């Protein structure tokens, strides 16, 4: 029975609910814009990781390496695009 119970997934579910509550608190609590954005960004990234690893089973098959390489590559391209755009359009204008 013990090995049938998806403890990891249930914990993950509770954890993702918790992350949602924290993110939601930005709306209900009175805080500065930058603090709010920081909380949203951090919780969003953790949430994405939880979803990928626990619910989309990123690390559970033979494709593990391919999947993680793709994820890292996507993250790299996304970050370069975002920070490159910020640099060109805002910071260094």
């Amino acid at each position: 029975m013990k090995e049938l119970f998806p403890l990891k997934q249930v914990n993950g579910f509770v954890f993702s609910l918790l992350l949602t509550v924290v993110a939601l608190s930005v709306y209900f609590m009175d805080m500065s814009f930058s603090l709010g954005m920081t909380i949203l960004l951090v919780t969003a990234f953790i949430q994405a990781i939880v979803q990928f690893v626990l619910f989309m089973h990123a690390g559970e098959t033979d494709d593990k390496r391919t999947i993680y390489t793709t994820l890292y590559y996507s993250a790299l391209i996304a970050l370069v695009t975002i920070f490159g755009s910020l640099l060109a359009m805002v910071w260094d204008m």
Partner: protein
Amino acid sequence: MEFFERFAIPHPDPMIYASMVAIVLVSIAIVAGLTYFKKWGYLWDEWLTTTDHKRIGIMYLISALIMLFRGGADAVMMRVQLSSPEMEFLNAQHYNEVFTTHGVVMIFFMAMPFVIGLMNYIVPLQIGARDVAFPRLNALSFWLFFAGAMLFNISFVIGGSPDAGWTNYFPLASNEFSQSVGVNYYMWALQISGIGTLMTGINFIVTIFRMRAPGMKLMKMPLFTWSALITNVIIVFAFPVLTVALLMGTFDRQFGTSFFATGNGGMDMYWANLFWVWGHPEVYILILPAFGIYSEIISTFSERNLYGYKSMVASMVLISLLSFFVWVHHFFTMGQGALTNSIFSITTMAIAIPTGIKIFNWLLTMWKGKIRFTVPMLYSVAFIPLFTVGGVTGVMLAMASADYQYHNTMFLVAHFHNTIIPGVVYAMLAGLTYWWPKMFGFILNERIGKWAFWFNVVGFVLAFFPMYITGLDGQARRMYTYSESTGFGPLNMLSFAGAGLMAIAFILIAYNIFYSIKNSPRNVGDDPWNARSLEWATHNPVPEYNFAITPEVNSSQALWDHKKKSHTLFKGKIDKIHMPNNSGIPIIMAGILFVFGFSFVFSIWPAVIIAAIAFFSCMLYSSFENDHGRYISAEEVKETEEKFGGAKK
């Protein structure tokens, strides 16, 4: 009648009315011809509903060739207009529409389908697969591209062409400065065909990762397949940016948002930024398959294995990564500081390194090879020096401070045509000629092909090298005329002469197809070029199941091993083969999206809503449709193999 007034063209011109008449007449002729010869059933069963990657590939290639002539006609019109000072062939507005159409058609509706068409036909054969991973999705990709292309092509007769350049920069493309529906057409035509391309990307990544023949490790794939894999990875990462940018542009124009507005918290430069975040990788989406094709052709016609296979793969991977790091070099002059420009200047120059590696590898492949100067090889040999000139001027443009001099001049126009024409167009012509016998079972006439080649190369040099000079002298890009005192006249006349020679080259290519269909011998065998990779290991023309027995390989040149090292490709016996069924859903969905796009362009909301419902109904229907494909029985396969001249070893 008020309703119909919106379809009127805002800037009428006798030439446009003539085109309207021509379009109507040609459409009537096609419909009448198909009805008279009773070909509707054949067309529907064998082509329009097909899920066979080979037929989809051929449809892509036909569309690309037609669009090549459309875009080419625009190019000739531009060169006529600029051939001498104060020319009055086109007015300013018409000239704007023509160069916009030329750019969009050539990039999206000529180069892209040409590349994807060749990938469609060749990649499954090169990896020993029976089809792509998702055959019906592949058909949908094609029909979405086709719907987008048709939507764009009717713009100049219904409602007016887009006229803000193929880059469609805001605020010029906003409602304030582009009042006709032209830019709406741009948004929706590219949106629809772009989604098709995105699906192609996913389809081919899965195909190449999942469906390779036994023994074909990643590092044993033929180089064209490698280039296709990398290209599709770039597509999947780059195209979503275009999708989003186009949607934001649509919202700005049709729903009054201010993403790219100059006020209201919007930022007009952000369009340029997003456009080139997609646009620069797009350049490599076009050129990498070309590199793959050249690698195949140079190795085949030098009768040597490709020099530096690993470095070829590594340099392509590096180019694909760097392609996402350089986009700001398209707008060095937009006002960002020296730090930003320096960073993007350096990343841009870095791309020259892997590209240089490839150039040397091709040269070393030919070194001491037994070179046969066939038409595909001639294009490949001409590509190397011409593309190098284009690359070197690219490094010049990459220097941010110097770019202030070159930016938006004919120098830039010369540079990118210098990379795209010898790079992409020659590769496509070379690839088409090289794989033509694979597709149709006969070789295109070599003599006419060589004439076309020489007209093409001489025409290209005459047309574009003068632009480097006029550009440095200050002739701005997209100016519809110039005064005599500028002194640009003689060199522009030379460009016009070059464009004329290129036009003759393309007419010769079309004539060659016609001539060869009638006169070329049909008994060329399965391997007419003495080639090296797997696509030549099956029959000619290819049976619908590609390979009766799945081949087993142990190097990137499986057929060469078979011929020279007595490697057995086809072990085992013939069994029943699982094939996908045809489906009418893709073309119907694309037709619905065409209506959707057209109604959206003119803001006819009831039609938009109905089309959207119809589209989702098609998706719903597909989700619940029970289609497990069909089997070709072993007897039937054996029969076909006998008909094609016996089973392959």
